[in-house]
């Protein structure tokens, strides 16, 4: 009977009719949602008065686009996917069908050819087709490269899946070299290659790795021990200011202050840990949130020491283990010692390897600790605190070690951040940073190092990549700055991931205890799946 009810509805409304209805609903909802966001805009006129600018045209465009999207999805997209599913079930293709249909050899070849042509003519394009179209073509080139890479990854997916960690580390180690080589060939000079690599190594590489490290550090607290910490950025700030102040006032070396910054952050971690020992879940989140804000407000208001919101500048650079420096005026500047041309790229590449080493240290310590009693106790604590205590685990020290260890890595990352920027101010340590780091941990899958690294790559790399989308200016006007929309995209990505993979990219927990025959266990384990 239940079946006949739903099929009756279907016969009444054909897909197209249903699509009309759904499109109207979607239009009404988006109108309601966006009328205040897009339809009206507060602005200042010449005499500095607040006025309301009306943007009905833009509002209508957005609403119509939403309606069209919904209409085509319901009328054609959904039936198409349903038919494909039926066909796939019949042919037994189902598991990889969507991806294998998406990645095909002819399309791969087209993408490669397209990318090669566009790269070869990239310098001539603006003159040939005009700057606007050149922008689009640049975007197209990026898409072609990404698609071709995705095809290669898809083709070797079994191999990549089996050796993910090794391949990942190898790729990260080779990345700056690869960038310099490719760009040197492209620019036909090594100096040009080094100069061009700055953006890729610094804006993408270092930036992403800082977040990878922070997220891996927070993962110890949130992912392993299950203690929701909304103020993680406080430890990042402690580490950054520890290096900034001690380094610029006392001239101490980064290599002495790095462990000191870690220790100081760990100390603050324990200090935060004590009062919140009895709290869990929401209550803990509120207190840690407050802690993060307190640290930031102290940094702003304790002017004598921190120089307030003006921040600390002139933070010394990291040296090459005291042997060489990266200041071109120093007698032992790396360029003079090694007798190579002067370039700011050496420092960035060195910093890249430094943060890579720090991040890998975090990962290494995390994986080792998980196999040790303290790590196992963290995970048990996340699962069931009462059971833990009745099994003889001292939950007090367990929580404090989790806070301290997580905070220590935050402190390391902070010291690195201060050294990289050369300047710190309380503005870098706002709640939004904590939220982003936590979002990366949640998106990646709590407790999973690989998932978190992928999430950081997608989220931070993705928002950086928005800066590249200059061609959008020709659509939305000269004032359009795509990177301002990164939080919107961040939120959208989170919603999408949480709908498809509610436990994050890598949602299953890797067991840390194995029988003698490890392979057999882990493969049978993956079939369980859902936890």
């Amino acid at each position, binding site marked *: 009977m239940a079946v006949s009810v739903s099929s009756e509805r279907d016969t009444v409304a054909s897909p197209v009719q249903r699509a009309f209805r759904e499109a109207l609903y979607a239009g009404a909802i988006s109108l309601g949602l966006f009328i205040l966001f897009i339809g009206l805009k507060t602005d200042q006129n010449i005499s500095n008065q607040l006025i309301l600018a009306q943007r009905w045209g833009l509002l209508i465009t957005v609403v119509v686009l939403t309606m069209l999207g919904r209409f085509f999805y319901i009328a054609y997209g959904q039936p198409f996917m349903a038919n494909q599913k039926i066909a796939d079930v019949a042919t037994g293709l189902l598991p990889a069908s969507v991806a294998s249909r998406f990645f095909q050899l002819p399309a791969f070849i087209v993408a490669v050819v397209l990318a090669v042509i566009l790269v070869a003519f990239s310098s001539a394009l603006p003159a040939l087709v005009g700057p606007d179209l050149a922008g689009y073509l640049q975007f197209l080139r990026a898409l072609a490269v990404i698609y071709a890479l995705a095809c290669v990854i898809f083709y070797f997916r079994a191999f990549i899946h089996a050796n993910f960690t090794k391949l990942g580390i190898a790729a990260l180690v080779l990345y700056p070299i690869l960038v310099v080589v490719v760009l040197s060939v492209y620019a036909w000079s090594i100096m040009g290659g080094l100069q061009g690599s700055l953006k890729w190594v610094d804006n993408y590489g270092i930036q992403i790795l800082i977040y990878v490290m922070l997220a891996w550090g927070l993962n110890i607290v949130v992912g392993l021990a299950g203690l929701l910490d909304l103020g993680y950025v406080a430890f990042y700030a402690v580490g950054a200011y520890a290096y900034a102040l001690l380094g610029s006032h006392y001239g101490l070396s980064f290599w002495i202050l790095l462990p000191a910054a870690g220790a100081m952050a760990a100390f603050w971690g324990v200090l935060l840990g004590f009062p919140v020992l009895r709290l869990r879940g929401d209550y803990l989140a509120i207190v840690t949130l407050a802690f993060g804000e307190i640290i930031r407000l102290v940094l702003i208001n304790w002017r004598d020491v921190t120089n307030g919101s003006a921040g600390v500048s002139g933070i010394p650079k990291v040296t090459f283990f005291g042997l060489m420096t990266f200041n071109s005026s120093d007698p032992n500047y790396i360029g003079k010692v090694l007798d190579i041309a002067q370039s700011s790229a050496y420092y960035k590449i060195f910093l890249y390897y430094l943060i890579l080493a720090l991040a890998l240290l975090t990962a290494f310590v995390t994986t080792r600790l998980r196999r040790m*009693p*303290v790590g*196992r*106790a963290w*995970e*048990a604590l996340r*699962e*069931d605190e*009462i*059971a833990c*205590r*009745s*099994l*003889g*685990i*001292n*939950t007090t020290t367990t929580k404090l070690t989790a806070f301290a260890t997580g905070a220590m890595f935050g402190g390391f990352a902070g010291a690195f951040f201060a050294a990289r920027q050369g300047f710190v101010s309380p503005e870098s340590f706002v709640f939004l940073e904590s939220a982003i780091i936590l979002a990366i941990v949640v998106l990646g899958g709590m407790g999973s190092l690989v998932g978190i690294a992928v999430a950081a790559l997608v989220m931070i790399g993705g928002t950086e990549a928005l800066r590249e989308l200059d061609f959008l200016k020709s659509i939305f006007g000269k004032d359009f700055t795509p990177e301002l929309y990164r939080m919107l995209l961040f939120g959208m990505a989170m919603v999408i991931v949480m709908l498809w993979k509610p436990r994050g990219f890598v949602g299953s*927990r890797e*067991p*840390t*205890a*194995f*029988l003698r025959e490890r392979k057999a*266990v*882990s493969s*049978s*384990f993956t079939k*369980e799946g859902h*936890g």
Partner: protein
Amino acid sequence: MMAETTLLDIKGVETYYGNIKALNGVDVHVNQGEIVALIGANGAGKSTLMMTIFGAPRARSGTITFAGTDITQMPTHEIARMRIAQSPEGRRIFPRMTVMENLQMGAGLDNLKHYDEDAEKVFTLFPRLKERIAQRGGTLSGGEQQMLSIGRALMARPKLLLLDEPSLGLAPLIVKQIFDAIRELNRMQGLTVFLVEQNAFGALKLATRGYVMVNGNVTMSGTGKELLANPEVRAAYLEGGHH
């Protein structure tokens, strides 16, 4: 039977939840080598007594002595390290950890020396767990989870095993399996067991001695057989229920 050495001695224990008195001066003792059952209706304070032994919540007055040591004010984890093991109410296994990891947690984090030997004992008692060794705790059936909970408790090589409603929500056949296992542990290894149950018939049949608890007070005590024969006990807990 060496019934004369008292292993666990609970004297005049009063426990509160806020201002609500949950235990009203309870006297219970468990001798070496016994199975002692505590029966009573919902809300009588059985589980509270079980948790009070572990110091969470803590007794506001009275004393709890284990093997001659006063444990009333000890932190929970130190009480556990006195080798009192517990299979708590609702099993409380670690759902995302594998069966093997759960058992390792029970063995105590500092000492995995006896792990293989003890795990083998658990697997002889509950062969089902061995089949499930690499499976996550949360994917086990209720009965298997109960077995895991008891198995995990046994890994600590306890002197005293506390079981809180091991039959809760299980099919009669599984309940019988679990009760048989408890009996075997007691007979073969001389393990002392303190058992809280609503399944009064099964528990009293299994037990050397039993206590009946009503509204935070122990109202009756005696051997398992005596209590089974007692008309008041029969009327309150046995008739109309099981058998």
